[in-house]
């Protein structure tokens, strides 16, 4: 029974964190455009007119979709169409277990957690692509093709930045990387290039500008998700929220020492670490949201050529740099 508690608790925590981060993204995005954004509480005079409380907007979106009709196109491959979002949600939840939330984790101390999490993260995007292909709509086909092309260039950079951090800390487990940073310095100071590559890769994976290409709503009407509605769309949105918090948590774990400022000996230290973890997540999301706001969308060929020219170069350089840092640290 005690074992079940973290198994249920961690995905729920991840989902709630994802909702909060998504709310922050939308709020900062709106505020940078001179707008107000989703409101947490209604203004005073309008409270009597429109009711007093608001639910967090991203949570409300998912809940609303659960009550809507799920339409499956007649010419879609029904099995793949229905199962792809579910599998991608399961994989996203699986990847949530490998993150350490400021000290709380289930599988972050597994000696091979980096390898597991990279595979699972690739799987989430892959099943979005499969769902789009099964939809039998010209828009989803174009969107899936774009997502597959984008994955090719983005996953390499993601992998290289994760492995840069693993090389420096000489360990393939997330827990090990975090304890290395507790003893030494946060890896963002030791190898800032890897952190930069990771942020750009996160933009690509979560479809934020300038990599909003697979979901470009002006050209292809939501890309792979065009034909989804109702509960299936809610599944996709939830997997997106969980992926947001997983990737942000992964960044904080790998590069900002996962909130482990004080050694996790007493309960007060652990609470402090958790709060620092949340704060760092919010700061990272702030940066992501501002980049999302000030950059227009690349065209897919421009994105691929830009990524190969600059991003891959930077990733290769960051790996070499981390080898050098490891050597220096090993000698010292």
């Amino acid at each position, binding site marked *: 029974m005690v074992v079940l508690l973290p198994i249920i608790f961690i995905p729920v925590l991840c989902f709630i964190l994802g909702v909060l981060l998504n709310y922050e993204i939308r709020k900062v995005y709106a505020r940078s455009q*001179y*707008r*107000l954004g989703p409101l947490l509480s209604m203004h005073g005079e*309008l409270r009597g007119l429109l009711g007093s409380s608001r639910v967090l907007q991203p949570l409300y979106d998912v809940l609303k979709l659960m009550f809507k009709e799920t339409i499956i196109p007649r010419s879609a491959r029904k099995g793949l169409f229905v199962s792809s979002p579910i599998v991608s949600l399961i994989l996203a939840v699986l990847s949530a277990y490998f993150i350490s939330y400021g000290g709380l984790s289930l599988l972050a101390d597994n000696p091979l957690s980096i390898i597991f999490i990279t595979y699972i993260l690739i799987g989430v995007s892959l099943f979005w692509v499969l769902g789009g292909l099964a939809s039998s709509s010209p828009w989803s086909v174009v969107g899936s093709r774009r997502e597959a092309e984008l994955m090719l260039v983005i996953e390499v950079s993601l992998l290289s930045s994760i492995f840069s951090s693993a090389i420096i800390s000489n360990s393939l487990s997330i827990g090990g990387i975090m304890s290395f940073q507790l003893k030494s310095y946060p890896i963002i100071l030791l190898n800032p290039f890897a952190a930069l590559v990771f942020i750009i890769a996160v933009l690509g994976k979560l479809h934020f500008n300038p990599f909003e290409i697979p979901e470009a709503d002006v050209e292809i009407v939501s890309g792979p998700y065009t034909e989804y509605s109702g509960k299936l769309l809610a599944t996709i949105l939830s997997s997106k929220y969980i992926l947001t918090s997983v990737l942000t948590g992964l960044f904080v774990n790998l590069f900002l020492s996962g909130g482990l400022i004080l050694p996790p000996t007493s309960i007060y230290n652990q609470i402090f670490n958790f709060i620092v973890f949340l704060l760092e997540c919010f700061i990272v999301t702030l940066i992501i949201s*501002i980049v999302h706001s*000030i*950059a227009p969308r690349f065209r897919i060929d421009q994105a691929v050529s830009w990524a190969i020219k600059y991003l891959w170069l930077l990733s290769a350089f960051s790996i070499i740099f981390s080898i050098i840092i490891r050597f220096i640290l090993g000698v010292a």
Partner: protein
Amino acid sequence: MLKSFKRAIEALSKPYTIKYPAGVGVEKYSSVPETLRGMPEFNADKCIGCSACVSQCSSGALTYMDAEGKRNLNINLNKCVFCRRCAEVCPEDALTLTTKFEIASNNKSELKVSNTIELSKCINCGNYFAPEKQLNRITDRLMSGLKEAKAIQYAQEDLPKYLHLCPNCRKTLSFKLNIHTRKHILYDTS
């Protein structure tokens, strides 16, 4: 891209959205200019029921109906385009466009502005033909515009007798009552 970044950061604390409806309390609607063309409104004292507005309405929203001795002027706000043509042509300035723009309603029958004018009867045939106020106004305007003494005298004699005749009766009785040429007056030199 750096300049956009600076602008985005500056904008974070200065939302341009203002609360609807643009202010609270006394300042509500203060940003709405006086020249706004909103809901039309009749001034029942000044309206004489001439229906000049009906003929000029550009969308057919203004209609009139004569029934039971009254003339009903109706503005159907569903069709009104708030162009202000009716207010422009009204000879008495009885129709104005207020600045009220929140006229949405759940009830279609609420979206109507109307005015009722009494009609007067023809003294010959007894049918209702024209609004009483319009005939009074014609009298006032005519009397204030005439300058020659003889013209004023003729007008004062004729108007009470012949003004309240409907167009049909006026046509049929014109020769008998000699109101269309006053021939005998012209040749009278006394």
